[in-house]
């Protein structure tokens, strides 16, 4: 008695399926930003710190400053490019740190159950209830400005964000029969958790991390805006917006609007991409 596998054809068909335009655009934009940040010293038309009071607050398209200049005459395009380094890396750090912490705590709570779960969950609720910006500001107040402290503080306050989702998915997934079937095959709890439970938690985690990336970017920009993050003259999108305050009041909004637009587009792109990755991993298991 033999059986054939009709599935092989279906699979190659799926490979040809095109990804949505929005995802392609998002990926393109993020690649563009990454390249711009990495190659800023080569690509940037001007030095990000070169001031020129004669050329201050130029609108976009004016002469050799494609995106105009800010109130001290620094080239906005160059500053956005250099700023991409910190503005992308710092939220990435937050996401990775909070992801690792959240996975560990969430899985522990889900697998331990009972009072350990209760203690961990209430602990997460408490951290969750504490405003992340406030925590970051407190930490900065203690350690002085700089990026390391706010990254760690934000990572801690984002941990419950990840941990709660991981916990709930892990509980749900851990109750499925295949968990038991691997135990019955003689695998230990830790092995099954890391090798079989964790991969099944990943789709949700990736989608969640993309959201967290957006929040972290905005939070870090807010900290910079408040003057607590990046120290001037280092470029960073948040601090660019912050420094454009007075210019905006003078009716010259470009030097603030453009970095703001970049923040917006980045957050949207990351969300679109995260959603897509999460969705396609989930789709694979549902058999679409």
């Amino acid at each position, binding site marked *: *008695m*033999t*059986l*054939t*596998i009709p*599935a*092989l054809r*279906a*699979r190659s068909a799926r490979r040809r399926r095109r990804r949505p335009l929005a995802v392609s655009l998002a990926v393109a934009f993020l690649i563009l930003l990454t390249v711009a940040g990495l190659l800023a010293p080569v690509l940037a038309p001007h030095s990000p710190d070169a001031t020129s009071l004669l050329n201050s607050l130029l609108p976009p398209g004016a002469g050799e400053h494609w995106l105009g200049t800010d109130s001290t005459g620094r080239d906005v395009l160059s500053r956005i490019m250099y700023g991409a380094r910190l503005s992308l890396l710092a939220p990435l750090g937050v996401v990775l740190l909070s992801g690792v912490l959240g996975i560990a705590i969430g899985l522990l709570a889900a697998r331990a*159950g009972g009072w350990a779960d209760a203690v961990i969950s209430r602990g997460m609720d408490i951290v969750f209830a504490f405003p992340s910006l406030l925590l970051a500001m407190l930490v900065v107040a203690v350690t002085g400005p700089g990026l390391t402290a706010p990254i760690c503080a934000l990572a801690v306050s984002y941990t419950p964000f990840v941990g709660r989702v991981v916990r709930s998915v892990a509980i749900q997934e851990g109750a*499925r*029969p*295949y968990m*038991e*079937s*691997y*135990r*019955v*095959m*003689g*695998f*230990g709890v830790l092995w099954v958790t890391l*090798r*079989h439970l964790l*991969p*099944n938690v990943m789709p949700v985690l990736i989608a969640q991390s993309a959201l967290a990336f957006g929040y972290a970017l905005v939070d870090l920009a807010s900290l910079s805006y408040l003057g607590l993050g990046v120290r001037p003259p280092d470029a960073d999108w948040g601090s660019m917006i912050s420094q454009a305050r007075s210019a905006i009041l003078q009716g010259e909004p470009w030097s603030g609007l453009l970095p703001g637009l970049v923040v917006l587009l980045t957050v949207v792109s990351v969300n679109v991409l995260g959603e897509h990755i999460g969705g396609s*991993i989930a789709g*694979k*298991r*549902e*058999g679409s």
Partner: protein
Amino acid sequence: MRVLAKKTPARREAPDGGAGDRRDALGVSGLSLTLGTGVPLLADVTVRVGRGETVGLVGESGSGKSLTARTALGMLPRGARATGEVTVADVDVLAAGRRRLRELRRTRASMIFQDPRASINPVRRIGDYLTEGLRARGVPARAVAGRALELLDQVGIRDPGGALRCFPHEFSGGMLQRVVIAGALSTEPELLLADEPTTALDVTTQAEVIALLKDMQRAHGTGMLFVTHDLDLAAAICDRVYVMYAGRIVEESTGSGLFGAPAHPYTRALLEASPSVHGDRVAIRAIAGRPRSLADSPTGCSFRDRCPLAGDDCAETVPAHRPHGQSLAACLRPGQVTP
């Protein structure tokens, strides 16, 4: 069916033909299980599966069939306490430590579940499933891929190489159950616990899977505990059948005797409640009342409140198993049922 009379000699055929001293694949005696909250789940369950024997465990949902099978591998519900004796291939399961249990599950006893789709991690390929199991069971890394192919071939899957690269969702339920069976029998275990292995499959696939199971079992001399609520199936393939009700074994009978001469009123009632394609048309009779769990069953015989034959004496003690025809029935009036 192109199934393996593989190189391994069937273990049950001891070279000296010795019968008496063969240890059982599974021996459960006097097993009682209580949750941490004091809710009883199983009481005084005794089940024996010899080498190469197929033993059925039938009963309604919630009667404790699966629980009994799981206990054989030491998979107790959280916080449950078990008393009695459970031995699988000479390992005292209830006393065994974690390491010993894992060793047992890895090499000597396997379990297959109702829904194969639910019992394989959906995000891993079939090949990963098999090789992971094989590696854990001590097959050297070099030999793993070949062995996996061999196993798939044995359970009748064409193009095993392609199958290894497939994801579970690309397989039908029946094929997936074959994969699971291949994995479960890869170590030639002494005991195979089959927890309703065909319930999720359609009837023709069911027949094929059963045939495959029996063939594999014959080839390896594996003892099989077949948990099901399909009475016809149990009677057809099992050497002996245990009937469970409310966490207790109420009847033990031979496979054929189950239909021929049911001794316990519950068994009789179950048979009357299931339709048959043979013989005259008979009205199907439901059993009055609702199934009880052990926790809320009456004193004495658990089936007392639904039994047409029950008398005052049934309330006094839980009836002992007494022989009746080919059966052992836990009833004071075995075989007195008038249809």
